[in-house]
């Protein structure tokens, strides 16, 4: 007997607003503990929350980009529980009236398109952070800098049927949020967190099996491995005739297992009720339309357009649309006269290698689209060969110099197009390698490449390769 895997994901995305959701403290990450705090986000008696409008705007972007219905009225509710990082003893969240509902995402898994439903998206505040100093057992500190930082909770339908689908959904969702410029999508730093509900059921059964909720997976790889582990664990239990217990389990990345954190009996009764300190959130239709009009092109649309409009291979389009900054770099280069396929090749195979080696993002790239476009145009015009261009690009990158024509001129990197000069060098090369010439004439035309290389060497790569080919052929065959 085999089982169908059922997975639903809950994502918490930290929003990139300048200030917190209910006060005007900075959301900056990594500042001195408790430096970005005030009476509101530390829950001092009498302090009251005031909603940051930007958070609503970001929620609308996320909702519209994931095909959700926007509720014109949504309500903040209090989720009550005790924990030292939760200063008010409740988290302000949304419960029965979230801002977005009934959306979906389309993802491609193994070449097949699949629609994953999104149940809801709601706004809430983050909690603070506990700090346990190693040299002080029994003592914990609380840093409230993160308290009240805005989050979107995005809950999927239990529509995924494999860990691969789960990861594909997660990546697609993250790309969208990053494209919308509302979340930086960093799983390791916790700005994009994921919990997974996993259950199994015999194929054909309508009812869901008992699920476990997996937490503590801080990379796509861990999500995949945790789900795979959990599926194996549940399958074993079921095959042995046992029953899966409804519980929350933590992924232990070192031991590569999930461990039980709390059972159903220990589950909290959060006693949600509408927060009387906040008015219902009203979103007029005009606001929704304005946000809709301003939505950027999303990763998937962009990828498809790059393939169709520029004739790029799917793999390159995928890489170029990995981030909005990358796609913008590409399109700007094309706009400035760079030939699209060349621009794509040079970005994917040259520029990205530099960036990856230096671990910097495209936004910080020393070569600008202007610089790259100018270089590509020099190649198209035949001023520099591809080989020279690589040298020029290296100089541009290293020296933050975006004037390739000047570099070429200053360093004498201009291609040698002089027929007589090249013919002379070709003659010298042939004279210096009589053995190779013999081989060539004997039919071993492979040595041709070697001879070209010798000419290039003598000209330090500056010879016009087309011309060298012509001259060599003429002298060898003639």
């Amino acid at each position: 007997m085999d089982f169908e895997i059922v997975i639903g994901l809950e994502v918490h995305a930290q929003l990139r607003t300048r200030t917190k959701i209910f006060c005007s403290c900075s959301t900056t990450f990594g500042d001195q503990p408790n430096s970005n705090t005030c009476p509101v986000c530390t829950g001092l008696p009498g302090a009251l929350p005031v909603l940051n409008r930007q958070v609503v705007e970001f929620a609308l972007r996320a909702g519209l980009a994931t095909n959700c219905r926007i509720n014109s009225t949504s309500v903040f509710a209090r989720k009550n529980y005790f924990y030292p990082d939760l200063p008010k003893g409740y988290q302000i969240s949304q419960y029965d009236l979230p801002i977005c509902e009934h959306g979906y995402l389309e993802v491609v898994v193994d070449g097949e398109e699949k629609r994953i439903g999104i149940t809801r998206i709601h706004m809430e505040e983050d909690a603070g952070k506990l700090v346990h100093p190693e040299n002080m057992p029994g003592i914990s500190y609380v840093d409230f800098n993160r308290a009240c930082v805005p989050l979107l909770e995005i809950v999927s339908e239990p529509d995924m049927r494999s860990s691969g689908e789960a990861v594909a959904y997660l990546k697609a969702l993250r790309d969208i949020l990053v494209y919308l410029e509302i979340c930086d999508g960093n799983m390791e730093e916790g700005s994009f967190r994921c919990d997974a509900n996993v259950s199994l059921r015999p194929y054909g059964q309508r009812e869901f099996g008992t699920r476990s909720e997996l937490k503590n997976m801080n990379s796509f790889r861990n999500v995949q491995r945790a789900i795979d582990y959990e599926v194996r664990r549940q399958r074993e239990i079921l095959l042995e005739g046992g029953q899966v217990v409804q519980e929350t389990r933590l992924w232990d990345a070192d031991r590569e297992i999930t461990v039980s954190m709390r059972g159903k009996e220990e589950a909290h009764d959060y006693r949600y009720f509408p927060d009387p300190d906040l008015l219902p959130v009203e979103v007029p239709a005009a606001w929704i339309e304005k946000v809709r009009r301003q939505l950027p092109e999303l990763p998937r649309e962009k990828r498809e357009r790059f393939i169709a409009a520029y004739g790029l291979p799917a793999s390159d389009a995928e890489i170029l649309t990995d981030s909005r900054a990358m796609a913008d770099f590409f399109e700007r280069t094309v706009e400035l006269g760079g030939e699209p396929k060349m621009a794509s090749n040079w970005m994917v195979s040259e520029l990205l290698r530099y960036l990856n080696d230096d671990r910097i993002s495209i936004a910080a790239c020393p070569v600008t689209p202007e610089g790259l476009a100018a270089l590509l145009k020099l190649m198209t015009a035949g001023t520099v060969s591809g080989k020279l261009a690589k040298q020029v690009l290296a100089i541009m990158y290293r020296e933050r110099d975006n004037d390739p024509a000047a570099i070429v001129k200053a360093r004498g990197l201009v291609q040698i197009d002089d027929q007589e000069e090249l013919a002379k060098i070709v003659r010298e090369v042939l004279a210096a390698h009589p053995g190779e010439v013999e081989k060539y004439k004997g039919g071993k035309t492979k040595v041709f490449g070697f001879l070209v290389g010798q000419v290039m060497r003598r000209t330090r790569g500056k010879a016009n390769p087309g011309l060298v080919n012509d001259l060599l052929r003429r002298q060898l065959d003639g």
Partner: protein
Amino acid sequence: MELYARTIAEVSDLLRRQEVSAVEVTRDVLRRIAAVDGRVGAYLLVDEAGALEQAAAADRRLAAGEAVTPLTGIPLGLKDLLSTRGVATTCASKILADYVPAYDATVVARLRQAGAVFTGKLNMDEFAMGSSTENSAYQPTRNPWDPERVPGGSSGGSAAAVAADECLAALGSDTGGSIRQPASFCGVVGLKPTYGRVSRYGLVAFASSLDQIGPLTKTVTDSALLLGGIAGHDPRDSTSVPREVPDFREQLAAEIKGRRLGIPREYFVAGMDPEVRAAFDQAVAVFTGLGAEIVDLSLPHTEYAVATYYLVATAEASSNLARYDGVKYGRRAAGVDNLLEMYYRTRAEGFGPEVKRRIMLGTYALSAGYYDAYYRKAQQVRTLIRQDFEQAFSRCDLIVAPVCPTPAFRFGEKLADPLQMYLSDVLTIPVNLAGLPAISVPGGCSRAGLPIGLQLIAAPFAEASLLQAAYQFEQATDWHRRRPPLDV
């Protein structure tokens, strides 16, 4: 007349004419506190140094004639749930015994800006939960009219301090009658503004959808002046309403001739003291004499108000009071060695019995499986109660009613029976559920000499109209001139 015995309006005139200084007034009030508070127990903290410093600053403003307001140099008391920067704010609870706020409540900041002087922090029922101030963790406050009786609550310290001339006026808060009922018991004027008229920022929350800060004063004029000083939209309180604040004092003199006063049948509850009833009838006669028209009214859902209130208020309180966990501020139980024990013992030791009772009630009302039957149902009934008033105000301009079924009761009289205590708020609670403005003015006196208040209720944001009627009544009667027998 001693300075301390005067009103805001009178002292404000004296100050502006520079016949007295704010420091003199403040010293006089501080002397009065020293002389009588041992017998009254209104103050939890007297901030002598702070008050004198603020008075000296007020005098500089008065001398320069700069930024002078009717409240410049006026000594005011604050209920101890208003956050005051650098001055302890305990909510009369042990759990906040050592809590010194880092910020001012909006009302405190506004009064500071206006040049007011703060004499100190006034006693109350712990976290404003109670109707007698007997739930203070620190001390009883005695009714200045009879030391055997309670001053009412929860703003009992505020009402007693004003009645005993221990400040020219005070701020209290009203969640289910906590300004109006003690005002009635102590013979002063207590105003609960429309929900949203005054910012709640910095008011330590009991029940957020009901709490409202308001003035306790010696006269209606002073009520108008002090309300003017604290009212208005505050961007820090999402529930405060962006609505213009009229000059309440300027409009006081408007006649009430021809206005329709509604009397709700349901407010004459079983167990109402005949003396309260008699005082009410007499007050109605005064209004008739002033040319008001009397309208018989029904507010049919009144009988559900107390039950509704004790679900909504306790539910909100159970959540509002969750922040007192010993982690960040206030009291933390000593000698605990794990988190759960810290929570349990901190809260067990820090909260008094009434607060615990309400946290448990509210927790229950919100619990899974009970929410619909209790909290949701209560919200539905609350809507019906609000609609009762909406309909009533289509037939009348103001509602007139008693404040409390009885005058001030004795210490311990209702403490043993919480339900009796809760029911004594039956005439004030509906107003909070509907978010309306209401005022309690001195409106009679029992044979034993205890004050009896008269309540006027208006439509949302009709404070001006409320104050006009109260002022006309005050001008036509002498109840507000009676002083408690403290000096004998």
